[in-house]
């Protein structure tokens, strides 16, 4: 784990009248993290991000970014942050190029044509750089949002649902870009997303919040360690496989069975052991399919599941 703390939040609280949107939240994001910020709708994710970006004043609590106070060292801090807050909105009557030029100048970025075109190329909008943003689709605006967040080469990138509205290919491209920015460029990424699979794939650390409060925080591995996962084994001889399972210790982990599939609830280590056991007993296992572990975990933590 990296030692340098990029975001430090202590006891952050925001109340709108009688509604407590964020309640005594603590957060730690370290340099180089791809930090997943998870929570169901209305959990307080966007409110937290808005407070981090000083769009909303906290009711109480302390926030430090790069070890400095947002209110006292705003200029220095914000020159090192790139962000998309909720959906990226632009000056619709201006072209993508002009939008980037204006927003880049506000961040003190290099706004030469070469640099802006580089950014537009990175997000695949170079051919539409002259078009007014009002002619853009939601996905294109999302890409342009990323371009404006990256234009001034920030150290910390805060992304609030960056893949919303993108097609699967677009989502993958954004995921790859985030991984590239983290691994190759050493950027710290604060990623809020409701797509758990996405966070599971790219986040190094994460926090799950619910009803404004943090439920758990840690690395994805730490959080899922010891967690049982529902796993589907596709087998050739289902009756024989069931007989073998019922005569073994694996009977306790059995969940259900269908025509050619048996479902178990297993830890990650047990998946390999059961697979080996079935093969040794002459059962041909054609596939082992785990149900998304983080999704299960998330639903249990946020009490939103039906299980």
């Amino acid at each position, binding site marked *: 784990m990296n030692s340098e703390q990029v975001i430090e939040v202590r006891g952050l609280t925001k109340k709108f009248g009688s509604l407590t949107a964020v309640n005594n939240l603590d957060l730690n994001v370290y340099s180089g993290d791809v930090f997943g910020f998870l929570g169901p709708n209305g959990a307080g994710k966007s409110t937290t991000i*808005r407070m981090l*970006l*000083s*769009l*909303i*004043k906290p009711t109480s609590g302390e926030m430090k970014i790069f070890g400095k106070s947002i209110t006292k060292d*705003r*200029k*220095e801090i*914000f*020159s090192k*942050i790139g*962000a998309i*807050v*909720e*959906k*990226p*909105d*632009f*000056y*619709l*009557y*201006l072209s993508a190029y*002009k939008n980037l030029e*204006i*927003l880049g*100048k*506000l*961040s*003190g970025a290099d706004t030469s044509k070469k640099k802006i075109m580089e950014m537009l190329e990175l997000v695949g909008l170079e051919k539409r750089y002259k078009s007014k943003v009002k002619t853009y689709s939601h996905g294109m605006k999302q890409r342009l949002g990323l371009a*404006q967040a990256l234009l001034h080469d920030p150290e910390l990138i805060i992304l609030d649902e960056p893949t919303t509205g993108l097609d699967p290919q677009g989502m993958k491209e954004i995921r790859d870009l985030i991984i590239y920015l983290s691994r190759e460029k050493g950027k710290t990424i604060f990623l809020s997303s409701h797509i758990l699979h996405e966070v599971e794939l790219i986040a190094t650390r994460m926090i799950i919040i619910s009803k404004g409060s943090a439920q758990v925080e840690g690395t994805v591995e730490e959080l899922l360690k010891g967690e049982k996962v529902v796993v589907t084994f596709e087998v050739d001889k289902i009756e024989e496989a069931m007989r073998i399972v019922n005569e073994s210790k694996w009977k306790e982990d059995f969940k259900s069975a269908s025509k050619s599939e048996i479902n178990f609830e297993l830890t990650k280590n047990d998946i390999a052991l059961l697979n080996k056991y079935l093969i040794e007993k002459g059962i041909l296992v054609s596939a082992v399919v785990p149900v998304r572990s983080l999704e299960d975990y998330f639903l249990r933590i946020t009490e939103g599941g039906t299980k």
Partner: protein
Amino acid sequence: MITLIWLELQKMFRKWRTYIGFIAIGFLAVVVQVALYFTGAKMIDFQMRGIEQSFVMVGNLFNGYFIARFILMALIIHIPFLIVIVGGDLLSGEATAGTYRMLLTRPASRFQVVTAKFIAGWISVLLLLVWLMFLSLIVSLLLFGSGPLLSFQGMKLVIIAQNDILWRFLCAYLFALISMSTVISISIFFSSFVQNAIGPIAATMAVIIIFIILSAIPIDFFQTIKPYLFTNHMSQWDGFFSDPVDYNDIFRSLWFLLAHIVVIYGITTYIFIKKDILS
């Protein structure tokens, strides 16, 4: 700060609504000039009818200065309504578009952002008045020539010599700049509360209309409060065409309007800095 102001101006002048005022003034000034070109001489005869037996007037009385003042008097009342179209959108336009989230997550502070908006607004007023000055004064001088200025002050006729006019026009336009800056400041103030431009435009217009009506009601109470209504001070630009010029009155109105601008700017800045951006 200069970058911020420049960017605000770029955004402003890439919106078509910014040009409504310029187009309207251009249209009206030209229409008035054309109408006066063909029928305006009769107006001078009409205004001189009571004194033409006693005085002999020589020179070009129906000249560019006369037309410029006529246009200024005719249009200056309506310019506030053109100005608020721009001012009412300055802050609320960002809320409508959702661009506050982009704008306010940059290194510039909210104080700098709102100050840049105010300065850009005042610059737009300046440009509109420069446009008005160009059309009403310069074009009129080119079309109608120069000469002394006849200025009717109630029952009094003041004739201002040709070489004593230009500075009066410049001062009148400068005063108008302060008057109109007060108006745009009020519209920016209203603009800081809402998420669309219609509200601030309507609210500013309502304030101006209400204050003008109150000033005109011949009841003691309203006449008592009249000196405290900013609309009452906006027409002091015409004082520069008196002889002698009553500087006390002019400066009293000037300070009053400037105080309005400073207070409105201060309150708007305070509200904007404290505001939660939820759009």
